[in-house]
């Protein structure tokens, strides 16, 4: 095992430990309740997958929410038709979203740059519109797809699961997927997803994706057919999105079209750039930070704000409250847009870049580019000549 392989295992086990101990170290932040931690894990999966496309190849998709939605619908249908066990649903979600990603990617990847971004955005909007209109028999339109008592659940009834008066809960071999067990299921999926992303990033395949990002034309003259590389990257990241969508339906067995909206696509882009595009851990950090702040900001309302700012003089208090109230509660999206701009303008490398800069300040980690390179060249040139 070479040195980089060892450091990868250290990274992996460090990551796994950090995720599994979330209930402990998130306690001081008041974020250690299962619903929220589940969200951290699920959107971590989403962002890791998105980063395989955007981070490695540089292709910016604005339509990944479509795959998220497809994953959710697939899992709910698996509940309805087959079984309340989540495993078949999750597997189907990955497969179906992979097929979707293949179809959309095949067309979108015929163009690059902003054309690609626009095409993916258009496809996502198309899926969203369809889910709301024609596909209502599959998606149940605005209400969203829900479980009912009369669902067939073929596998469950074959296995002789007793029919009760209430809609059954999703489970995995008898363990309910809500609460802390639900978090651990998502956490394990996240860790597996992280491991696969790590291997992809470190593989020759991943290197080719990075080379495509660096100079796509050169890749063609180097003998690579770039299209299948890009298509695979797109399909893999679509599968991650489908997996994340499936997990959303694991914790809460319903699926709605709003999951496919462009704002959801924008959110995963933000998570990735906030954490650090092209880094392995960054997207997960971005997902955690955004979901954490979403949770805090959305829960505030005006009266709570008045309490927070009660110490201020009355007139000032009202001004402060009315300004801040724009950013909290239903105004969370405003905060999101603001974060978007701030990160892109001031910290294009995201949190990971910030950490690196601070690290460099204290002399940890050495810069990769050294100045004397050109001097050495001249000497070499003279020696050769």
């Amino acid at each position: 095992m070479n040195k980089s392989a060892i450091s990868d295992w250290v990274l992996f086990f460090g990551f796994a430990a950090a995720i599994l101990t979330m209930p402990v170290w998130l306690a001081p932040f008041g974020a250690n309740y299962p619903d929220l931690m589940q969200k951290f894990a699920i959107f971590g999966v989403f962002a890791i997958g998105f980063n395989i496309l955007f981070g490695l190849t540089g292709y910016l998709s604005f339509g990944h929410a479509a795959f998220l939605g497809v994953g959710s619908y697939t899992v709910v249908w698996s509940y309805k038709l087959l079984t309340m066990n989540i495993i078949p649903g999750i597997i189907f979600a990955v497969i179906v979203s992979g097929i979707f990603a293949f179809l959309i990617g095949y067309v979108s990847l015929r163009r690059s740059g902003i054309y690609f971004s626009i095409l993916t955005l258009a496809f996502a909007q198309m899926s969203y519109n369809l889910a709301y209109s024609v596909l209502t028999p599959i998606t149940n339109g605005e209400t969203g797809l829900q479980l009912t008592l009369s669902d067939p659940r073929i596998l469950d009834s074959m296995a002789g699961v007793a029919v009760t008066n209430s809609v059954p809960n999703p489970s995995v071999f008898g363990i309910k997927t809500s609460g802390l067990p639900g978090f651990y299921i998502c956490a394990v999926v996240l860790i597996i997803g992280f491991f696969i992303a790590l291997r992809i990033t470190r593989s020759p395949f991943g290197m080719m994706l990075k080379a495509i990002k660096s100079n796509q034309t050169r890749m063609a003259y180097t003998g690579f057919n770039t299209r299948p590389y890009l298509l695979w990257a797109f399909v893999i990241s679509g599968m991650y999105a489908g997996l994340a969508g499936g997990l959303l339906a694991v914790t809460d067995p319903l699926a709605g079209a709003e999951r496919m909206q462009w704002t959801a696509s924008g959110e995963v882009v933000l998570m990735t750039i906030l954490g650090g595009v092209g880094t392995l851990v960054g997207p997960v950090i971005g997902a955690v930070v955004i979901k954490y702040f979403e949770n805090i900001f959305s829960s505030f309302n005006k009266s709570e704000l008045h309490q927070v700012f009660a110490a201020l003089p009355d007139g000032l208090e009202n001004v402060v409250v009315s300004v801040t109230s724009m950013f909290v509660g239903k105004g969370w999206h405003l905060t999101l847009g603001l974060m978007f701009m701030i990160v892109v303008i001031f910290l294009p490398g995201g949190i990971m870049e910030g950490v690196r800069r601070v690290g460099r300040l204290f002399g940890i980690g050495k810069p990769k580019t050294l100045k004397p390179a050109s001097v050495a060249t001249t000497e070499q040139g003279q020696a050769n000549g």
Partner: protein
Amino acid sequence: MDNVVLHVADVHKSFAGLHALSDIDLSVREGETHAIIGPNGAGKSTLLNVCIGRLKPDSGHVVFDGENLTGKQPHQINQLGVVRVFQTPEIFPELSILENVMVPILAKRDGSFKLNWFKRFSGEAEVRDKASSILSDLGLGSMLQHDASSLSRGDKRRLELAMGLSQDPRLLLLDEPTAGMARHDTNATIELLKDIKATGMTKVIIEHDMHVVFSLADRISVLAGGRIICQGTPEEVKADPRVKEAYLGEEQV
């Protein structure tokens, strides 16, 4: 010796009515170093671009070792062993120098696409050793881990050459390998290309530096106004009055 590897047959190419190439017939024999010279705007780069599939000829075709290259995609042409070294360095700026050379070696080994996502790139010891030995030969051995973007322009061209050589090409197309280089760098490059020549690699060089051309080429084709006006050994070309008229008149030899 007389085994023709690359055959450019009756190629025409025009841009918006302007004839960039007409009646181009060119044969490159195995193992030879074939130089294409000509004044600026003679169509040298166009010819090279036709050979690697960047441009499609209006008529005629390019045959490499029995395979028709016309209409093939750039990566297919590369996979056949036709490798181009660009004049303005086309490298992967964000990758390390070592990675820049490992990538083309993998293209040669694994073909145009391989989904080997579970392997380790850094575990490709053979590829790495080959890449670092080529880089050492070219004088870049001391900076394997640096980002390619940090290289000077001259070193980028060297890296570009390393990338081309790493694929053990059956035909190497060099676009002005010494353009913009200082004299001692030019000499170093000539020595290097002589070493490569000794290995028996077939090469086509586009060059306008006569010093380089006459120290390397086995045969020379002179291009002027989109046509080949003369073909032969350096001595024959030197002696040809048409060449003097069209080309040599404007340069000091």
